[in-house]
């Protein structure tokens, strides 16, 4: 397995017409780190993630993943996971998981094998692989989305509010599954979220963006012990204190 890589975001700016979405963004994502991006709506957190994925060009500055400067979409280092899952409704779970490999021209046997392995990692082995997305619950659909991201074996996962449209109980299970996967796979993860609890529970550091234009407002270290999914971290006083600290920061930004 390839070693994780860092992402260096250097003085990045991006505007949409006259509206400045991002100004002078500088973030060093460490290799293997799980970094959360949070901020009030309109702070440009999703825009920044799309810039990292190469879907949106930056106006100034640059983004380097590992040793490659991002110039457009389709880079092999990073996979995106979408808030609305973005599954092909006409393709089965396995075909969806294969999609990234299909676009890269991998032979069918290799695709199927990689997709099955990825589906097993996210807990969807066996009978689910022939189901269409419409037959799966939201949580299972996002598992397929995650399997698609993992099947191409990227070094970086870029997750855009991946659990935002999933019910609370399922979300907690998926968060624990993500932590387990992350510790097994040693990937660098950048997670956009609007949930303070999610940011604190999952990440090593939380980057708080301020709105209009989006700037890096604060970087909060999260020194909670790991593996958090096994340690019942949510019930700890330290967890509550960190969530409150994040809330105090965000409150002043509203």
């Amino acid at each position, binding site marked *: 397995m390839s070693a994780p890589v860092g992402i260096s975001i250097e003085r990045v700016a991006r505007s949409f017409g006259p509206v400045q979405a991002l100004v002078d963004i500088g973030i060093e994502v460490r290799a293997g780190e799980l970094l959360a991006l949070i901020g009030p709506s309109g702070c440009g957190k999703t825009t920044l993630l799309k810039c990292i*994925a*190469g*879907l949106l060009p930056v106006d100034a500055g640059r983004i380097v993943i590992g040793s490659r400067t991002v110039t457009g*979409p*389709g*880079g*092999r280092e990073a*996979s*995106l996971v*979408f808030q*609305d899952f*973005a599954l*092909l*409704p*006409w*393709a089965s779970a396995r075909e969806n998981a294969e*999609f*990234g490999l*299909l*676009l*890269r021209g991998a032979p069918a046997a290799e695709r199927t094998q990689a997709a099955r392995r990825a589906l097993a990692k996210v807990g969807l082995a066996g009978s689910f692989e022939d189901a*269409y997305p*419409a037959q799966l619950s939201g949580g299972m659909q996002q598992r397929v989305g995650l399997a*698609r991201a993992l099947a*191409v074996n990227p070094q970086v996962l870029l997750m855009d509010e991946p659990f935002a449209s999933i019910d609370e109980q399922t979300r907690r299970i998926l968060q624990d599954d993500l932590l387990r996967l992350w510790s097994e796979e040693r990937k660098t993860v950048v997670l956009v979220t609007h949930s303070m609890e999610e940011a604190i529970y999952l990440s090593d550091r939380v980057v708080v963006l301020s709105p209009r234009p989006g700037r890096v407002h604060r970087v909060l270290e999260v020194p909670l012990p790991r593996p958090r999914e096994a340690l019942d971290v949510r019930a700890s006083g330290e967890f509550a204190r960190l969530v409150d600290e994040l809330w105090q920061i965000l409150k002043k930004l509203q």
Partner: protein
Amino acid sequence: MKFDGMKFALSAPEPPFGRAGLAAIAGLLVVWEILGRLELSIFIPSASTVAVAWWGLLTDGTLLRSAGSSFGSLLKGFLPAAAFGIALGLCMGRFRTLREVLDGWINALMSAPLSALVPVLIALFGVRDTVVAATVFLFSFFVIVVNTMTGVRGTERSLVEMARAYGASEAALFVRIYLPGALPAILLGVRLGVVQAVKGMVVGEMLISLVGMGERLVYYGNTFLIPELYAVIVSVLLVALLSATLVQACERALVRWK
């Protein structure tokens, strides 16, 4: 109308006749038979008389001969209409400039009374069954273009973004996202197109009045052979129904994921 169509495409296609539908047809036949037996007018023959006339036309070969000619024109007009219609619709859905140039024309021609163009077609092609094929093409082409274009434009943005994020080329986007995404709308367009094509076939044949089932309609109408006239009308309905059912079977086979 376009929107009703889209909604229809999103529900699974139903078989044309459920139990209630069959009961309604049986009821209609009974009422028709009674009205016919009352001998109100020679223009209302009883259902059984029509059935006898239909059987007569079927066994003496008249019906098969004219239906064969009609079906030939239908295929010659409809298959190119479907092929070109889908191709043009895909391009118009994808390329904005092309859409802006052609959209007005397509909409105008879709709603225009196309029968008015048949004399022009006769001038162009002469009085032959080519005119019928051309009429079929004109009647079915535009609805297929518009539905295909609507389907492409309705493709979810997030799927396009996802495919681009995973490195899809422009060609891959077309084949892997836009085409399958538009497929239900395309097939709906084809189904509506088939119905239009049958209309075009009858209009073309009646106006040049030399070939196919349209010629029989005009002939039996002019010679007051009313049961035979009804028999041919019923046959035209059957052709339309059969064509639409065939397309629906294709829909069910191709769009299993809904």
